C-alpha cells in the first residue's frame, strides 16, 4: 500500500489572505491527502519546524504579500538548519507571484508555482506525479 501523502499548507509572514490556502487545504483533503494547516502569520522558523516535526512530503507556502523571494528561501534554509532535507520535499508556492520570478523561485528549489485561477486538479496531479520521484520516496522503497 502506498503511504499517505502528508502536506503542510502554510501562511508565512505579515499576510492576512488565507482564503486561497484554506480552499487548497480543503480540496487536497478531498484528494486523499493528509493536510496540516498552519494558520496565519507564522514565521519561517515555525513553518520549517512544523515541516520537520510533521514529517510531511509536501510543503505549500502561500504568499500574497510579495515577499516570496525573501521568505521562501528562509523557510528552506531553516528546514536544513533543523535537520531536514528540502530535497526530499515537494516544495510548492501559491498566491501572487509575477511570472518573471518563477525561474528565480525554481532556482532555489521550488518545484511548482500556482497562481490564482489554477484548477485544483492541476495541483493534485502535480503532487501525485512528482512526490514519488523525490529522493525520500526512493529511499523508502529501498529500506522497506
Amino acid at each position, binding site marked *: 500500500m502506498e*503511504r*499517505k501523502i502528508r502536506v503542510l499548507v502554510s501562511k508565512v509572514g505579515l499576510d492576512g489572505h488565507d482564503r486561497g490556502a484554506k480552499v487548497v*487545504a*480543503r480540496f*487536497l*483533503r*478531498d*484528494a*486523499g*491527502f*493528509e*493536510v*496540516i*494547516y*498552519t*494558520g*496565519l*502569520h*507564522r*514565521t519561517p*522558523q*515555525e513553518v520549517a*519546524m*512544523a515541516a*520537520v*516535526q*510533521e*514529517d510531511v512530503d509536501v510543503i505549500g507556502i502561500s504568499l500574497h504579500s510579495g515577499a516570496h523571494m525573501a521568505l521562501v528561501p528562509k523557510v528552506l534554509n531553516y528546514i536544513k538548519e*533543523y*535537520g*531536514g532535507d528540502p530535497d526530499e520535499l515537494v516544495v510548492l508556492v501559491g498566491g501572487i507571484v509575477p511570472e518573471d520570478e518563477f525561474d528565480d523561485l525554481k532556482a532555489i528549489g521550488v518545484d511548482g508555482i500556482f497562481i490564482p485561477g489554477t484548477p485544483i486538479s492541476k495541483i493534485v496531479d502535480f503532487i501525485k506525479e512528482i512526490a514519488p520521484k523525490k529522493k525520500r520516496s526512493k529511499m*523508502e522503497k529501498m*529500506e*522497506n
Partner: protein
Amino acid sequence: MDVDEIVEGILSGNKRALARAITYVENDYPDGKLILKKIFRKTGRAHVIGITGFPGVGKSTVVSKLTNEFRNRGKTVGIVAIDPGSPFTGGALLGDRLRMDGLDSSKKLWIDPGVFFRSMSSRGRAGGLAAKTGDAVRLMDAFGFDVILVETVGAGQSEVDIIEVADTSIVVLMPEMGDDIQINKAGILEIGDIYVINKADLGGADKTERWIKAMLMMDQEAVEILTKTTHAQEYEVQTGQIFDKMSRAGWIPPVIKTVAERGDGIQELADAIEKHFIYLKESGNLIETRKRRLSREMIELLIGEIKAYLMKSDKIDFNKMVERVSRNEIDPHTAVEEIIRVLINNNI
C-alpha cells in the same frame, strides 16, 4: 535514515529522527516495529495526559495553554493531536496545530526546543484515536518528554479509547451542552480523572458544574458498591474496563472552570494534573493500570501475529479448514483446537 540512526537520534534528542520514526510506525513499515523494539526499555517515564471532549469545546486551545504552562514549570512537552480521516477519500484536514499560540507567536511554542507537536489522522478508526497513537506516544516517551499530551478526535459519546493510552484523562466540556440526563449517560462522561468546563465565561457554566459534581458523587458511591460485589470481578474479566474505573477509588475528580483563550484556570488545571499523577504513583494505580493495559495490548498483538501466521503459513490451510466447517464435517471448536496443535508443534 536507517533503524540504528533513528534509534540513536531519538535517544539523543534529534527531532527529525523522532518525526521519521512516527511516520514509519504510523504506516506499518517493518522498520517501525524494529525501532519500537529498540526503544521500549527507555519508555515508561513520561506522564501521559489525554484531552478529550466534543468537537469545538476548545481542546486544542486547552492543549496550547497547558503546553505553555508546563514549559513555565520547566517540563518538556510532546503532543499528539488526532483529527478524523475521511471515510470517503481517506484524506484529512489536521487542524489542531494551528491553535498552538493562536495568533500570538510571542510564546514561540512552535520552535521551542522543549516542545514537539505531531498531527495524526484517525484514518477511519473509531474510538477517538489513531491505531498507532499509543506507539507514537511511546516514541515520544523514549525521546524523553516529561509530559505527553494526547488530544483525541472531537469525541462522540462512546469514544473512550483515550483511557487505554493516558494516565490522566481530561474531559473538556462547555456550558449548555445538555441537561443532567446527558451528563449521567454512560461513555465519555464517566472517564474523566479531571473535568474542565471551558468557555466558562458563557452563561450556564455554574449549572453545568453542579450537574457534573452531582454525577461524580453518584460515581463515587457506585464505585464503593461495585467493589463489594463479586459480580464486578466477573465483569472485569469480560471487559477489562470496569476494574480500571474501580481503581479510581480514592480520587475524586476535580471540576475546573476555564476560559482557555484567555488562559483563565489553566494553572489550576496544571496543578490538578500534577496532583493526579502523584495520586497514581502513591496509590500504586499507575503501575497496576499500565500493567492491565499491557496485558490487553499483548493479547491483541498475539491475536494479530496468529492471524498473520495463519494467512501465510503452508502448515495450515485455514481456508480449507473453514470449508470443512461449512460442510459440517467438523465443528469450529475442534477445528480451532487442531489449528492450535499445529501452531504448537511448529514452534511458531
